[in-house]
């Protein structure tokens, strides 16, 4: 009996379902960053707003990468429904704390897919995920660095204005 499932799709239904969950997660991230950009802009933190706009775009690109990969492998990509986006934040710092939480959750989720791929010996998807793992290094670094600015600059006086200015300059230049 021919292995028709394998003929039709390179990835298993479990991996396909995990990748679809990741598509939804990336879409959620993109929307939450957009909401953060809006909050920062409304409250006068223009550099941070630009930073979050860029982050929102990046997450959207990640979402599309997953989306196209599932389709290319013969799977079914599901366009996700994104709801429950928080629109208001209590403080400038809270925005960055939640941004870091979001990145940590994305990293964990990619690690979880990677673990499943290892179990199934799906080396093709593992190789595809390598790019995302590297990307997460940068994403987490940037989110952590932004929070660090709150510690080193301090929020007193014109502190928040300084932090906002420096958020726009955060760069990750690792050759490793």
């Amino acid at each position, binding site marked *: *009996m021919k*292995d*028709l499932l*394998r003929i*039709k799709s390179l990835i298993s*239904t479990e991996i396909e379902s995990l990748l679809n969950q990741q598509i939804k997660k990336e879409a959620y991230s993109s929307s939450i960053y957009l909401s953060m950009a809006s909050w920062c802009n409304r409250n006068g933190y223009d550099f941070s707003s630009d930073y979050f706009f860029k982050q929102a775009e990046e997450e959207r690109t990640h979402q599309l990468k997953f989306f196209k990969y599932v389709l290319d492998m013969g799977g079914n990509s599901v366009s996700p429904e994104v709801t429950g986006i928080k629109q208001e934040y209590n403080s400038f710092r809270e925005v960055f704390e939640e941004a870091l939480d979001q990145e940590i959750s994305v990293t964990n989720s990619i690690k979880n897919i990677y673990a499943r791929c290892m179990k199934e010996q799906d080396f093709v998807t593992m190789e595809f995920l390598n790019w995302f793992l590297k990307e997460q290094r940068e994403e987490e670094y940037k989110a952590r660095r932004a929070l660090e600015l709150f510690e080193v600059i301090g929020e007193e006086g014109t502190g928040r204005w300084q932090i906002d200015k420096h958020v726009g300059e955060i760069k990750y230049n690792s050759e490793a």
Partner: protein
Amino acid sequence: MITTLTQTTPWTDVFKTTKGAVYQCDEERCWYVDFAGKVAKFDYRCLLKLRKSVYHIDIEHALLNTTKDPDVEIIFICACDHCYVLTLLQIIALKELLEGTFVMLELNHILNESLVISQ
């Protein structure tokens, strides 16, 4: 809708229960589901859609439901020629049939992979 099919290509048994059976046709790259009085042809996408819609039915909720609604579910699969109108017992039977089918297809996949590796 009752479909009467004349078998022109060889079919392989995938999984059988007392209520129904699933056969695979390698030549046509499809499956034939013999259930609820009809034999229906499903391609890869439609078989996955059938599985998804059957697995999504909340059987427990339907069993505990005391309203006077008729105890039937309509399984309609988008872009597929077939539709099932099933009672709760039939849904349980179809779910069992599909679960068994996918376990067998998975087993077949593992066997095929092992054969390729050992060659």
